[in-house]
């Protein structure tokens, strides 16, 4: 199919005897916001890890802009234009907020070893550009006032936002967000929603894993639903909401929880 940004075909991930992701097929088109949902343990983060190279896929293919991603290393996948955030807050804790974002810029800072050592004019120019972009991103995510703060000591909500800033600095075409609203309160979640919409307005395609149904329904153009590693439904939020298999999957989950 033409026009897809990301095309996942028959993706399978096995650990030992367990098949975490089973024969998964879906596509993402440019400019979309697609959500990946499913009960706990459905294989959502595993799918993310397989797409971004942090896990080895056992079978299947992941194509981005026509190029195959399977067997590439994470940094190579990043170079293609895909960045991600992590489920558990992942920053450079000992660096300041602005230094974190600056690090995200890495691929833009075309600086070689000899540039660094010889302090070439190119290096100085690149550094100036980087600083400008860093400030721009800090403003975009709303953390400009805290740019000097140690990332490890920022409040949780700010840390989650900073993570997105770091991923943004890498100038992605496709951004994978792993549970961006986890642990956030209502106000913060609303802020996250606005940030995601702002990013889409900047032509960044967004693929997210989320548990917050309100956020998912309010943001997504399309939703992919996983259960036990298999895709059980895909479609617009309205279609998915009334899909009987989806309801069973979630209700079943709740029934199990209620019995405990």
């Amino acid at each position, binding site marked *: 199919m033409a026009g897809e940004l990301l095309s996942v075909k028959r993706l399978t991930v096995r650990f030992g005897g367990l098949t975490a992701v089973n024969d998964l097929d879906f596509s993402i088109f440019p400019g979309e916001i697609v959500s990946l949902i499913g009960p706990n343990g459905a294989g959502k983060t595993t799918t993310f890890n397989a797409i971004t190279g942090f896990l080895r896929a056992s079978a299947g293919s992941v194509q981005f802009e026509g190029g195959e991603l399977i067997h590439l290393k994470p940094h190579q996948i990043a170079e293609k234009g895909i960045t991600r955030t992590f489920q558990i807050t992942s920053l450079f804790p000992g*660096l300041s907020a602005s230094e974190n974002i600056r690090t995200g810029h890495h691929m833009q800072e075309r600086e070689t070893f000899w540039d660094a050592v010889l302090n070439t004019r190119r290096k100085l120019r690149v550094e100036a550009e980087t600083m400008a972009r860093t400030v721009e991103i800090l403003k975009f995510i709303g953390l400009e006032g805290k740019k000097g703060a140690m990332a490890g000591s920022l409040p949780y909500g700010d840390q989650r936002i900073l993570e997105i800033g770091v991923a943004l600095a890498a100038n992605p075409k496709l951004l994978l967000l792993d549970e961006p609203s986890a642990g956030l309160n209502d106000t913060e979640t609303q802020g996250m929603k606005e940030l995601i919409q702002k990013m889409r307005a900047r032509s960044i395609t967004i693929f997210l894993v989320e548990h917050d149904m309100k956020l998912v329904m309010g943001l997504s153009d399309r939703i992919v639903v996983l259960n036990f590693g298999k895709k059980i439904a895909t479609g617009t939020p309205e279609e998915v909401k009334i899909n009987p298999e989806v309801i069973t999957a979630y209700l079943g989950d709740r029934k199990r929880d209620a019995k405990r």
Partner: protein
Amino acid sequence: MKRPHAAAALCLAGALAYPILFADPYFLHMAILIGIYALLAISINLLLGYTGQLSLGHAAFFGVGAYLSSLLYLNLGVPIWGGLILAVVGSGVLGFFVARLAFKLRGAYFVIMTIGIAEVLKLVALNWVDLTKGPMGLTDIAAPQINLGFITIDFAQKVPYYYLILLCVVLAAILQHRLVNSTLGRSFIAIRENEDLAESVGIDSFKYLVIVVIVSSSISGAAGSLYAHYVSFIDPGVFAFFISVNAVMMAIGGGQGTQAGPILGAILFTLIPEWLRVFGDARMAVYALIVIFIVIFMPKGMLYYLAQIIPGKKNDGR
């Protein structure tokens, strides 16, 4: 940024004037040894500071540099200038292979691997008698003379050699400084802080580790070459574990993760064994106790604690 630059300039001025103030051969000898060890300490500091990996086998690069330079001189007549460059290249190449071997290892596994490599090289130096003369070692490794027409600089003399060492140390310090303040340096730190996140923004952690190891090993190789042409005699002892340990102590004891730390550490840990001569045969035992003391009570290194005492001095890793 002004104060550290001013301090560095002051130290440099002092170092330049040193042979004039302290013309005694003993003081010059000490200064030269300090300089050689400073290079080792800087290379350990680069590796430890920017990858968090500790190498207890840098004597491998030091020894390779020493032997390469000496053999080139003795067998092919290559003077120290060529020997130095080839020692740097040779150690760098060795560093490349070590990095590839040891990349997947972390923590103590990496440490043991580095120790093992130094030990293997020592055994090679001991046994490949045809090449290295085994335990007898190589002798008469001379330093050259440069004839500039109006004067002749004889590097067999301590004063010229001192300036040569000083030049190399300054170059290494500048290299270290430039790396720290560059994207490259920041990438090293990022890898150390959070390798997965670094990878996710396009930082190839393997490539960067290799770069650090190559730079680190090259500097140690240079130190080895400079050592060989100074003492004019080397034997497999250049691969000794003690050299690696000492270099680590200097890097850590001087000031972990700082730029001036390795140099301060080199000064301290070269002078301390000298001052301990009053203890006679018990000298090294006391030295060992001091090492233990510093490791336990001053783990961040001297510079950190000095900075606490001296008011107003900034202490943030520069």
